[in-house]
């Protein structure tokens, strides 16, 4: 409620002071009546008003800071010079000194390595890693640690998850049918590999926006366009013209938000109220994407996965050869009529393209017909056979087909029996965006109020003038493509673009410190927040480009800074002077995000399967989820313990254990993880069978590693989960619990329901004599894993 009341207060204030007549009007403004397509255009933006306290009157004169070129910065002079390890520190310290605040002391080494490992890898460190770092007396101890973290494939996995949030990554289309996209994992793996190889960020951008134009024959680059191809889609849409518009809109808005932190979407229905992006400019951005089509059958380079996939597929095909042949033979005679019937079911403006012979297609018709091809299946012909064979009142009815349909249906049931022979996951194809081998693009129009049925003038690809600072697109068509996206990518990935580097370094900063230098990480427009440390932001952006857009170097500098090394211990003076900790006098603590919680529990349990990449997996879900065939649990139990970023992202069925901890929604760009605290989260960690079983494993591991010594066990448990030993008071609490809890478990035995949980995986020589005590220990371990300290990064 807070943001809302805050906003209302500000709006009221605006009315009182009369500062922002425009803002106030906007809230009541009534848009044109909603025609079909105007609402298709949806979040139009009369509600774009921003808090009135940031009245735009003066800003209009001075160019907006974020559109100014990035400036190289002089490192400020500070008093506490010995604290400065990196230029970052000087920028932060300068602001602290202005407020007479001292930075916090260094975090102890164990806390530091837990923090850095969670940040860089997304999991907790092992006690051995902690011990060796704590004991490392070399002056390069921190550098060695940070370089080790950045060299591990876990680094790429962690950074990829952040990027996939932005790319609204999913393994399915969403909407009602939520069809599986079996090839999309290749894009996910591309992202992981890019971070692990420290691919320069400018290259990373270009490949995702125009990989098919830049390297049309290189599957490892083409796959990057999965960034564009990941839009939510419904294959059953009967309005293909609307679909094209919605896909282009998704791509345009996603690009604007992810790379440029501009909510360009506002300008789709009206000139942007705060940022200088006109409606025309918005559609000029759309024009870069006008000729882009999804293609799903590019052969993938053949590796072990593909060989295995094909082997399994061949088995299925062999076993079902006769059934499939007979089904095809039934459909063949009605294929033409069925196809005609099916195609007539598209809306009027789609049909204009559909009925045209291929020789007469213009680029727009080509797009529509390719789309139609992509979504037409045998089932559509079968649906016709159903109507013609069984619907007596239908004009298509033909009694001769009744038997054929019945037979077809029966064969379908037979075929289903072989489903378990199908490859359970994976593919041998790549999905990408391409221009289907044609350089000519369909025309793009500006639409009245964003309504695609009300086109106004035609527009050409161009950059928003306010951001472009005079730069114009240089479009060089290739033999097979319009070259438009390459031009767009070159502009975005240019060192001269005032936004790109700033936006990215700010995202990385946000990951480490829980708040960006610009806190609205995806809005650098006038409705967003201004930077708390503008010089630092420019220093980071400038240096990022100078260092060849190296993402690892950026992480390294932050990880090795004194700012990052501070303790997170509570400080009354800092809290009083800067309650939101915007100046970073204290290291900001943070609840682990969904993936960090699950993956760290797996690490603690000693169960993590750390295979990198590959098709997405389906770990078990609660029995009462009711997701039917949208969530068929993997048959390979090894899959259960993969890192969370490999868990299948089904747009309509979120994996419950992650969802409850505020995982990213894959429907749109997800810029920032929120932290909510709910009883449903407590239920998940306390009651999930999976988490409980991991606790049993963790208990077993502790016993194996600590021996049958109670004190040593408690030490070990805390070392694993918290990177520290319990203090005396905590030990007392735990021992008291064990004593009482053994009694509780005995009571259970007396009530006749004696089934107890015991540690899993205990080695022969460590077997416990007393099962009740062992069971009490499992509950202790489970409880400690539920504690606040585990769920936080200090």
């Amino acid at each position, binding site marked *: 409620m807070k943001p*809302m009341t805050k906003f209302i207060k500000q709006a009221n204030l605006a009315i009182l002071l009369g500062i922002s007549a425009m803002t106030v009007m906007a809230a009541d403004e009534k848009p044109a009546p*909603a025609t079909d397509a105007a609402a298709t255009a*949806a979040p139009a933006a009369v*509600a774009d008003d921003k*808090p009135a306290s940031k009245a735009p009157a003066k800003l209009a004169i001075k160019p907006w800071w974020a559109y100014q070129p990035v400036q190289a910065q002089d490192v400020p002079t500070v008093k506490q010079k010995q604290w400065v390890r990196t230029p970052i520190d000087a920028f932060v310290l300068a602001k602290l000194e202005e407020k007479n605040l001292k930075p916090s002391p260094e975090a102890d080494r164990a806390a530091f390595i837990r923090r850095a490992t969670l940040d860089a890898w997304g999991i907790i460190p092992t006690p051995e890693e902690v011990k060796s770092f704590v004991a490392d007396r070399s002056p390069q101890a921190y550098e060695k640690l940070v370089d080790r973290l950045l060299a591990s494939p876990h680094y790429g996995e962690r950074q990829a998850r952040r990027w996939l949030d932005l790319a609204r990554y999913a393994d399915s289309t969403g909407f009602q049918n939520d069809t599986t996209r079996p090839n999309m994992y290749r894009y996910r793996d591309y992202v992981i590999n890019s971070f692990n190889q420290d691919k320069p960020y400018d290259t990373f951008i270009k490949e995702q926006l125009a990989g098919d134009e830049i390297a049309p024959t290189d599957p490892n680059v083409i796959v990057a366009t999965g960034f564009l191809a990941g839009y939510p889609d419904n294959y059953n849409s009967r309005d293909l013209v609307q679909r094209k518009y919605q896909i282009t809109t998704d791509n345009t808005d996603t690009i604007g938000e992810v790379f440029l932190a501009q909510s360009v979407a506002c300008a789709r229905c009206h000139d942007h109220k705060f940022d200088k992006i006109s409606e025309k400019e918005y559609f000029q951005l759309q024009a870069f994407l006008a000729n882009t089509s999804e293609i799903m059958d590019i052969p993938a380079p053949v590796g072990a996965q593909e060989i295995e996939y094909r082997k399994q597929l061949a088995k299925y095909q062999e076993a079902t050869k006769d059934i499939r042949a007979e089904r095809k033979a039934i459909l063949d005679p009605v294929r033409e009529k069925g196809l005609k019937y099916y195609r007539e079911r598209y809306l009027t403006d789609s049909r204009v393209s559909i009925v045209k012979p291929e020789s007469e297609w213009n680029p727009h018709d080509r797009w529509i017909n390719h789309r139609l091809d992509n979504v037409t299946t045998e089932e559509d012909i079968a649906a016709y056979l159903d109507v013609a064979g069984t619907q007596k009142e239908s004009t298509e009815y033909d009694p001769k087909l009744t038997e054929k349909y019945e037979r077809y249906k029966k064969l379908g049931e037979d075929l289903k029996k072989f489903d378990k022979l199908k490859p359970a996951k994976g593919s041998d194809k790549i999905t990408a965006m391409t221009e289907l081998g044609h350089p000519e693009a369909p025309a793009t129009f500006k639409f009245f109020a964003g309504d695609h049925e009300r086109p106004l003038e035609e527009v050409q690809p161009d950059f928003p003038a306010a951001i472009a600072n005079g730069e114009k697109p240089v479009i060089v068509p290739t033999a097979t493509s319009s070259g438009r996206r390459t031009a767009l990518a070159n502009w975005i990935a240019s060192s001269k673009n005032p936004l790109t580097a700033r936006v990215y370094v700010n995202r990385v900063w946000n990951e480490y410190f829980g708040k960006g230098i610009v806190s609205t990480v995806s809005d650098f427009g006038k409705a967003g927040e201004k930077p708390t440390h503008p010089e630092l932001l420019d220093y980071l952006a400038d240096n990022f480009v100078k260092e060849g857009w190296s993402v690892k170097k950026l992480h390294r500098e932050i990880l090795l800074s004194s700012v990052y090394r501070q303790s997170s211990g509570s400080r009354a003076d800092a809290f009083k002077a800067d309650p939101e900790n915007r100046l970073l006098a204290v290291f900001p603590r943070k609840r682990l995000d969904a993936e960090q919680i699950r993956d760290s529990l797996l690490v603690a349990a000693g169960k993590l399967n750390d295979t990198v990449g590959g098709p997405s997996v389906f770990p078990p879900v609660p029995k009462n989820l009711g997701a039917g065939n949208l969530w068929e649990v993997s048959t390979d139990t090894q899959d259960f313990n993969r890192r969370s970023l490999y868990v299948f992202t089904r747009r309509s069925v979120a994996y419950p254990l992650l969802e409850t901890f505020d995982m990213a929604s894959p429907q749109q760009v997800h810029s920032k993880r929120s932290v909510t605290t709910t009883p*449903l989260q407590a239920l998940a960690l306390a009651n999930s069978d999976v988490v409980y079983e991991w606790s049993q494993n963790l208990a077993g591991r502790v016993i194996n590693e600590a021996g049958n010594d109670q004190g040593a066990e408690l030490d070990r448990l805390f070392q694993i989960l918290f990177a520290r030993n319990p203090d005396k008071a905590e030990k007392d609490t735990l021992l008291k619990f064990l004593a009482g809890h053994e009694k509780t478990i005995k009571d259970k035995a007396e009530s006749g329901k004696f089934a107890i949980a015991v540690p899993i995986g205990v080695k022969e020589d460590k077997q416990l004599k007393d099962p009740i005590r062992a069971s009490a220990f499992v*509950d202790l371990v489970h409880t400690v894993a539920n504690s606040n300290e585990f769920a936080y990064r200090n």
Partner: protein
Amino acid sequence: MTTKSRRDFLKSTGYGVGGLALSGMLPALGTGFGAAYASELIDPLAPKQPQFPAKAKSVIWLHMSGAPATVDLYDYKPDLIKLAGQEVPPSFLKGIKTSTQGGVGKLFASKRTWNQHGDSGAWFSDLLPNLAQHADKLAFIKSSTTIGATHDISIMKLNTGDLNPGRPTLGSWVSYALGSANPDLPPYVVLYAGKREPRGGGVNWASGFLPAVYQGVAFRPGASPILHLDRPELVDAAQQRDSFDLLKRLNEQRGARYPEDTELQARMRSYELAYRMETTAPEAVDLSKETAATKALYGLDDEATKDYGTQMLRARRLVERGVRFIQVVSGTLDINGDSRDWDAHQDLEQNHSTHAKAVDKPIAGLLADLKSRGLLESTLVVWTSEFSRTSYGQSGSGRDHNPWGYTQWMAGGGANAGFTFGQTDEIGLQSVGKKVDTYDLHATVLNLMGLDHLKVTFLNHGRSERPTVVYGEVIKELIA
């Protein structure tokens, strides 16, 4: 209190009393659920006052999934019956984009008999004999319009106002604006008939860009309605009580280092809420204590009405427990061997008589029961669908999708009972005069909840978003 006597205490107080039983031993929680919020903790679900006095405290949002033909239920059109079998006069098709070339069939009348009911004289077809008895409780919207030719898109619009995923649903806005009236239950609950989640899933009760805490919680069929509500098989209640006591102590011992961190305190408290939810949630959906008469009222004694009746009775129990928004999605039923929702492209007779039978008595039972318990005044019941069905036929025995003109209704919760707003043309195809779009319906529902749809806002990416996107008008005539 020792651990043992604490358990005994729980036993002796019935163990299912939730907050009451626990309050004696957990001083931090105070007494009863009102007091649980008295603490200074920041809780996103803390109850909030409406912006102006609310007529409705709870909403039951009945989504008839698959889109029933309201010309066969409420919208009596003698001319349609007269003209049945003829081509649709072109004047009636003006201004609309019909979805299929081959699909605009001849005008089609189903085998209905129609009668007027109540003082209001509202028309009902013979498909809804029980609901017809409550004619005077309903406020009809006969000029509903929406967008789209595809179910999933229009269902998303029905719930979020948008055709693409990403916006919060109406229920999410309500829980965001009003919080929870009962900390032991989520403020926004989704019920569904049938064994599996409705297709399209969580998008239709998602919180979109609002924090996830405001999303709907799907209550699953069976005794254990919430995911992870049951303890692990080998952990009993006493064990968990021990564990949660330990957890509290550990959290307090360590948390002393961060006295200003309210998030840590909230997380500590969330385990106590969870512990109570383990009993309150199953109890909320446990129908075993309902009388045989009540069960019969909802049709639980008949296989045809049992499933939907169960959802209706659960809905009433949730209303009694302060849940703000209950979204009920109708399920699929066996129609000539196929599992189908209201989507009657063919076999409308069989389809609609089966579906109408499944919901008619349960909804009538709900209205009667709410009334007799004095809850109808503060409970808004809304019959909605993503769109409806055409006056012209399809496949000779069914109807196609109609987003241009159809009927929805509201009852209780300050709705203008006995009133009919708007109308369709003579054949029931398009709305004429003032139309009511999804946004208007949402604005009106929010108004009855004491919320101004223009002033419930959330700042997202620099945009001040509101529930009705950039549209919406409260239909004042629908408010008593």
